[in-house]
């Protein structure tokens, strides 16, 4: 049993923190894990992505082959679409629906969301607005992780909560709680939609 995840977003949006939490949960659960990250030049406002592979058995390639990602988890809707060729036929896209426009030729928002919605399995929400509304502006990425949690199959909610607590522990209890609340918010959004 395996799960392949493409994590994507724009440099600075915090996709690596999502990867760290999933990685921590997977390690604690005794799963095999490989996670290829992007460092360096691509971090500065450019597109960033990370390949994350979890499995109950050994994993060979650090990179996910085309057409095999079970999930695309993205902090930005166009960045979710960028990795479409990697999505498996029955794969799901979990993404923020709020465009981050830092290029002059950003596509038409309505057309972009329509293309996204035409995919078979999509969960999308304006997580930044949700974060603002609930006064947790710095935890938008944990809202997204919450939205993805029901699709993470090899990991349950408790394992993810435990990982959030351990990953953010050194930043203090307030930060841990804010991230746990954000996770819960995303989780309920995904369940109730």
């Amino acid at each position, binding site marked *: 049993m395996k799960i392949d995840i493409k994590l994507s977003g724009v440099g600075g949006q915090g996709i690596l923190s999502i990867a760290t939490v999933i990685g921590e949960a997977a390690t604690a659960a005794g799963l095999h894990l490989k996670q*290829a990250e992007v460092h360096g030049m691509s971090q500065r*406002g450019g597109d960033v992505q990370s390949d994350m592979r979890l499995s109950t058995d050994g994993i060979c390639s*650090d*990179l996910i082959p*085309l*057409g095999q990602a079970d999930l695309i988890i993205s902090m930005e809707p166009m960045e979710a679409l960028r990795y*479409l060729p990697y999505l498996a036929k029955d794969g799901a896209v979990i993404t923020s629906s709020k465009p981050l426009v830092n290029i002059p030729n950003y596509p038409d928002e309505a057309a972009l969301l329509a293309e996204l919605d035409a995919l078979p399995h999509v969960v999308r929400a304006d997580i930044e607005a949700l974060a603002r509304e609930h006064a947790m502006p710095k935890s938008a990425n944990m809202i997204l992780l919450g939205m993805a949690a029901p699709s993470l199959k090899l990991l349950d909610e408790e394992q993810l909560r435990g990982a959030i607590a351990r990953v953010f522990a050194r930043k203090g209890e307030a930060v841990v709680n804010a991230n746990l609340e954000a996770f819960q918010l995303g989780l309920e959004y995904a369940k109730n939609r």
Partner: protein
Amino acid sequence: MSEKRLLLGDEAVALGALHAGLSGVYAYPGTPSTEITEYIQQSPFARERGVRSRWCTNEKTAMEAALGMSYAGKRALVCMKHVGMNVCADAFVNAAVTGVKGGLVVLAADDPSMHSSQNEQDSRFYGKFALVPILEPSDQQEAYDMMADAFALSEQLHLPVLMRLVTRLAHSRAAVQTGEPLAQNALDPDNERTHWVLLPGNARRQYASLVGKQPEIAACAEQSKYNSLRIPKTSDVGVIAAGIAYNYVRESAPAGLPILKVSQYPFPIRQVRELAAHCGRILVVEDGQPFLEEQVRAVFGEEYPVAGRQSGELPRMGELTPDCVAAALGVEGGSAFANAHNLAPRPPQLCQGCGHRDVYTALNQVAAEYPDARIFGDIGCYTLGALPPFRAIDSCVDMGASITMAKGAADAGVYPAIAVIGDSTFTHSGMTGLLDAVNDHSDITVIISDNLTTAMTGGQDSAGTHKFEAICLALGVEREHLHVVVPLPANMPEITRILREEINYHGVSVIIPQRECMQTLGRKLRQKKQETK
């Protein structure tokens, strides 16, 4: 102390080296190698053992200092990105001639696909060129395990050992089982002056000894546990998979495929011949250039088919992917969904508020007044000034080339010739070029855009911080043509005035816009906030 840890390939190298009894790491930051040295700098175990780990000015100073530590009998590691090998090549190649005392491992992290680089040169050629053993781990566990073996091999052969990573291994995380740490070597400087004084008489003897070691180096690779041959059955095709390519091959390999995994060089000829004896043809799968493919083809000549990146079965350029390897193996796969329609490239850009932005704003404004102006850029965040909205630079070639190319262009008659170089790049390779320009009284204007850090690679200490005025004056730049300014929108009139005046001055001028990197500043403020909580 054995435990399982989730580590990047770079971190596995670092921890492997520490557990192998490392006494010093010497490096200049460069993606994808930077995290090795950073891990050692942050490691409590390294601190406990007094492992030397501060950043060096460039890869050559790093390589030479590591050789000095090896001379003194201790184990030393040098880390760099692939193009750093060009910078330290003089020291590296000659270290194979002197030989080493304490184990010396040179780690080069290659960047096929040029994620953060200006070429995709394959460091394995350097190892072959210098006649030293090369190790190329296939995964994070091997990266960790290999370090102790690399140091032992270096001490056994009295030679530097080259270890090669590629970006995907350097920056990919997996669980690593760690072992027991070895003791560090005691101080024991070498007494064999004839080994170390490379006068021609000694050098010839030493080189003969290096050539004489080649059969032993080859035997080590043939017996290496990192090279393995599996032939479940005779087959139409057999695969030689080098380093990380082994993972891509296993991802899609049909059952029964004969595979020779190569992770130690010189490549094991005996195993290659055995593979060929059981297969109709050989496919060489390797990341980087067709290094192994060329050599394997040379073993068999025309009569036996050898395929790979050169023959076209695999793409000649770019990093390997599980997809291109599967295709070469004839395994079907591919996308369920086509490329999206609503998609635009999102290139990296200079951060909002970055001082380099103000430098380019000023430079573009003044350069517009001089239609013949040419602006020679350099390696760093400020290379992004080549992209919109600035489109400000005409060249970017290698570390330090801004100053020297501006000089050469000025020598040829280009006016104004302007160089833009970052602080860390200036101390890495710009100072010597500036001295040339001063001695030649070249008509150039040099901008040292100083953000007090090595920003591109994530904010490492920069060797010349707070020393740039003194360095320029000492190199002979005239006081009245050396200016320090603060790149802020409010200071635009002052900066453009100085730029104009110094372009009009027909000699060497240096302008140092100085303001801290937004990223390191933000990090410091966050740390402060954390501490006061």
